[in-house]
């Protein structure tokens, strides 16, 4: 059985989006066609300033006027490490630093926080979720006198549920609690306007909904003084000084940038803006609910969240292990998904006893025909596994 008999259907966009629009490949190629002419690092002046372009595009997409408050990193995990470590480093009384997070969060949030808890630098509380959502009331109830920070996901990478960060942020700020939001799964999928969201830092990644390539990401930081820099080095500016610049964005960016990656990211954001986020969200909603509707026709398919806000569908087929279903989809039908725990172990502890599930995740490049085929073959597998339909 050669899966190449079937066209590749890629439904793992919540990990890394594919295919990339042609503009992204062209931007990478163009960026590599000349030497790097980064400001302060060469006498060359030709070529494009990809860093500034990417910063302008991102600040425009996220509704942030001050583009220097957009910082580039390697990915969302890198951003979260910089922000979490930098916040904790700035705490004068670390033993009095209580931090909130949620059971919906990814290991990019959970692991840094658990490491700091193990090192006795913070006390950590993890809030549960119900029907895919962490309630603002549960956040308010968890705040203590020593609560300093909350780090949480904007959109669950397993359930596709988008959290009410506006209400949660208002509550946190009423109590003087700093708020870091992981937008890895939402940026590029739904409208985000940082001017009107009560967040102190918002993390994005380049290689998912923004159609960039792996190795790019970043964060928005409202007040640079709230995070202590934890990386230092060359910036191409003020090189006489042996100390790292304090101004933005150099304060958090050390070393040579990923020029091809940022060229791709700028092109990806331009692509998203041209298509329009509302249009992208409408298409995603239509396709996601079509697949959910089809899967619900099989009695032995369990869908873990039937009303996702971003194009993510988590399911299992009773009687089959999730990795076996992923194997069947990939080998027999060339449908690529992701199985297992999706780096979000606490979500799975709640929804499937920690066994894991199959995740389908779409992008605006996914076609209706691909959704139809994927739903059909998943139903076929379910029917084969259902003793009532297909007795042994």
């Amino acid at each position, binding site marked *: 059985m050669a899966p190449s008999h079937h066209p590749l259907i890629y439904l793992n966009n919540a990990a890394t989006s594919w295919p990339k629009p042609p503009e992204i490949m062209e931007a990478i190629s163009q960026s590599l066609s000349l030497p790097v002419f980064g400001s302060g690092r060469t006498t060359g002046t030709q070529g494009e300033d990809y860093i500034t372009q990417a910063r302008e595009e991102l600040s425009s997409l996220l509704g942030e006027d001050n583009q220097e408050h957009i910082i580039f990193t390697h990915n969302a995990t890198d951003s979260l490490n910089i922000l979490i470590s930098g916040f904790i480093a700035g705490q004068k009384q670390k033993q009095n630093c209580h931090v909130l997070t949620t059971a919906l969060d990814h290991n990019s949030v959970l692991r840094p926080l658990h490491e700091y808890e193990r090192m006795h630098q913070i006390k950590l509380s993890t809030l549960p979720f119900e029907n895919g959502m962490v309630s603002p009331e549960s956040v308010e109830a968890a705040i203590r006198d020593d609560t300093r920070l909350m780090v949480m996901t904007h959109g669950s990478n397993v359930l596709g549920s988008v959290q009410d960060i506006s209400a949660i942020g208002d509550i946190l700020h009423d109590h003087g609690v700093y708020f870091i939001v992981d937008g890895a799964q939402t940026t590029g999928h739904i409208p985000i306007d940082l001017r009107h969201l009560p967040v102190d830092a918002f993390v994005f990644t380049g290689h998912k909904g923004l159609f960039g390539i792996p190795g790019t990401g970043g964060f928005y930081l409202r007040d640079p003084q709230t995070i202590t820099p934890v990386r230092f080095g060359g910036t191409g500016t003020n090189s006489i000084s042996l100390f790292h610049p304090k101004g933005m964005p150099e304060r958090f960016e050390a070393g040579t940038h990923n020029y091809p990656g940022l060229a791709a990211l700028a092109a990806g954001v331009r692509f998203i803006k041209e298509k329009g986020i509302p249009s992208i969200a409408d298409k995603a909603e239509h396709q996601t609910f079509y697949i959910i509707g089809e899967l619900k026709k099989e009695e032995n398919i369990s869908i873990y969240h039937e009303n996702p806000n971003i194009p993510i569908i988590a399911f299992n087929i009773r009687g089959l292990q999730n990795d076996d279903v992923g194997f069947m989809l990939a080998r*027999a039908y060339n449908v690529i998904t992701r199985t297992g725990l999706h780096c979000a172990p606490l979500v799975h502890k709640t929804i499937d006893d920690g066994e*894991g599930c199959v995740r389908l995740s779409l992008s605006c490049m996914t076609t209706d025909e691909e959704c139809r085929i994927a739903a059909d073959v998943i139903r076929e*597998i379910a029917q*084969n596994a259902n003793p009532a339909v297909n007795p042994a």
Partner: protein
Amino acid sequence: MRILRSIQHKYCADGSFMKEFLLDAPVTREFFLYLGNFGKIDQLPNLGDGFYKFDKPDWFSIKGFIGDSTVEVRFKKETLEITVDFLYLLFSSYHEGTMDLTFLKKKETLRAARVSKLLYGK
């Protein structure tokens, strides 16, 4: 049947170690039924050309589609060093027609004792 080479590997969410093996011939239904002498077989014979999965708890599992020249093997990480030779032996010993399993069963018993001692201390 011979394993030609391992074409990819990764650590899985459940802690197991996965290797995908390229074989010198497509796997058959008879091959999986032969494996059934050493563990449990699950099958969805009407799915594609037939999905089969062999499971030998604490050792490894093997899954694949009939007619495919690759299989996915998941080793229990703790016992991999003890069991991997037996996996190769299972493949290389297989041939069409009636098989004498005496030698393989003896090997299996000896390995099972080592696996049990490693995992359970007895």
